[in-house]
């Protein structure tokens, strides 16, 4: 690997880490109510902490390695604690770790305001182990959803599946997990009756902007250099493939902003900022699996359609009555499905619209369905275990008072006097300092 490609991987991995903390934490935090903004952000921060640890221990080993088990996962003990992994492949570990982190963190949007923090902490390692690591292995580690012999596509006799940067492993997976959790947890008090509106939309928009920035690491960093090429060939692949992926990512997100705004304008008469921020994310989700396979104009089309579809899809929770608080389903599941399936239509090489028949389309649909099934079952098992062990939901009073204070003993803001001359004088009386501090 050349130093330029390596430099890009270093920054790409850094960007993806940044997508969770602070970008996703902000995106979700701003959308929650002010009484639960910290809990929302803590679900992202704790995801980095916990997944960062278990990925080193058994996450990498379960995802990649030589000791495949039934095409479903790899032996978790093969490179437990990264023994035997060294040199430049450590950055591959790092890069993949950041994907595991953000996938887990994405789910938190569905459970806003009502999940016990301890339940979240227990949920994380179990869910990663049962759902994420296996799916990562299946799709990227040469497992059942790759082009492996006896893999799904092989069994179907259809074209090799395409998931450039994680449409199935990340977005469909997180979306399904969010849906399952939202149903098991039940609705927030007042859902559909009382107003539950974003408390700080500028935070959400910072989050959306930084997610977009980080997504370049996510998508463009996901290039796999063809090691059968010679040095010049590898350079050429790097130059042209990353250029295409970068541009497709940008165009699809931009177009999805417009798609979402148009739907809002038609339905409500006004294009909203939450809509624009959501459009950014929806477009980026959809292009994630597809970014290496489409033309820029194809990406533009995908963006407009995805923006419009997701703008409609976020209303589904009111219709069907599941409380996916921050729209993990409407944005990530729907966007992920649209992107994954659209590859079968729009891929310049293999897509139905390019006259290459339905083979790729069939594969993509089959892979998406299998991933949904796996994720649903795995999440259900994990959720029931956590429910049995420590319970999932905070009590009613905590929910009304706000999870921030109840679960973390803090409040997000203290602006003081309403004149704009913040003071923070009011509202407190005495400070007791825990004695006996110090090592």
């Amino acid at each position, binding site marked *: 690997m050349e130093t330029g490609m390596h430099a890009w991987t270093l920054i790409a991995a850094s960007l993806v880490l940044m997508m969770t903390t602070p970008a996703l934490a902000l995106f979700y935090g701003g959308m929650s109510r002010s009484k639960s903004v910290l809990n929302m952000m803590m679900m992202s921060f704790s995801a980095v902490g916990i997944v960062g640890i278990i990925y080193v221990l058994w996450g990498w080993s379960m995802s990649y390695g030589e000791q495949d088990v039934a095409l479903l996962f790899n032996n978790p003990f093969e490179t437990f604690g990264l023994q035997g992994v060294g040199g430049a492949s450590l950055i591959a570990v790092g890069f993949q770790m950041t994907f595991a982190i953000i996938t887990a963190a994405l789910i938190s949007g569905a459970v806003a305001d009502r999940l016990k923090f301890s339940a979240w902490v227990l949920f994380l390692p179990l869910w990663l182990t049962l759902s994420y690591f296996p799916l990562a292995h299946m799709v990227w580690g040469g497992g059942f959803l790759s082009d492996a012999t006896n893999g799904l596509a092989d069994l179907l006799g259809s074209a090799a599946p395409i998931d450039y940067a994680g449409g199935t492993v990340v977005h469909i997976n997180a979306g399904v997990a969010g849906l399952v959790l939202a149903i098991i947890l039940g609705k927030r008090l007042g859902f559909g009756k*009382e107003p539950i509106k974003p408390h700080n939309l500028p935070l959400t928009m910072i989050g959306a902007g930084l997610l977009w920035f980080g997504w370049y690491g996510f998508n463009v960093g996901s290039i796999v250099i063809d090691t059968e090429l010679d040095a010049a060939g590898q350079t050429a692949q790097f130059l042209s493939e990353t250029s295409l992926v970068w541009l497709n990512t940008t165009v699809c997100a931009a177009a999805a902003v417009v798609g979402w705004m148009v739907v809002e304008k038609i339905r409500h008469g006004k294009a909203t900022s939450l809509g624009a921020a959501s459009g950014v994310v929806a477009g980026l989700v959809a292009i994630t699996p597809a970014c290496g396979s489409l033309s820029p104009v194809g990406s533009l089309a995908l963006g407009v359609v995805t923006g419009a579809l997701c703008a409609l899809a976020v209303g589904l929770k009111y219709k069907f009555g599941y409380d996916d608080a921050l729209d993990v389903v409407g944005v990530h599941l729907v966007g992920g499905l649209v992107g994954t399936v659209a590859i079968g239509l729009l891929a310049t090489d293999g897509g139905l619209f390019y006259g290459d028949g339905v083979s790729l389309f069939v594969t993509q649909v089959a892979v998406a369905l299998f991933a949904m099934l796996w994720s649903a079952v795995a999440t259900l098992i994990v959720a029931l275990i956590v429910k049995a062990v420590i319970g999932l939901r905070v009590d009613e009073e905590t929910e*009304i008072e706000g999870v921030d*204070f109840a679960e973390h*003993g*803090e*409040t997000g803001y203290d602006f003081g006097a309403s004149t704009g001359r913040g003071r923070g004088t*009011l*509202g*407190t*009386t*005495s*400070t*007791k*300092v*825990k004695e006996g*501090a110090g090592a």
Partner: protein
Amino acid sequence: MKLVTAVIKPHKWEDVREALETFGVAGMTVSEVSGYGRQKGHTEVYRGAEYDIALVPKIRIEIVVEDADASDIVDIVVKTAQTGRIGDGKVWVIPVDSVVRVRTGDKDEAAL
């Protein structure tokens, strides 16, 4: 006329508003305040320092009403805002000399 001032728990605001509306109260003025009383606040921890927050959030409602309605309105608020737990709040009534509606200059009963 009377000024009825009610200090209640925030999550009862919607219920109280609805009950008053049903009764026929056409207007009121509302603000977010902090209450100090039997109901204890809570403790927050920031990097090892614990803070006792003595105040709890409350909603204050002010309604100017005809003399005859005052006690009914107090009753409605008490009934609707009651949870039976400490901190439910207080309602008090104060005599009012006169009221004017700014838009029209209507006075007293006509201003309500």
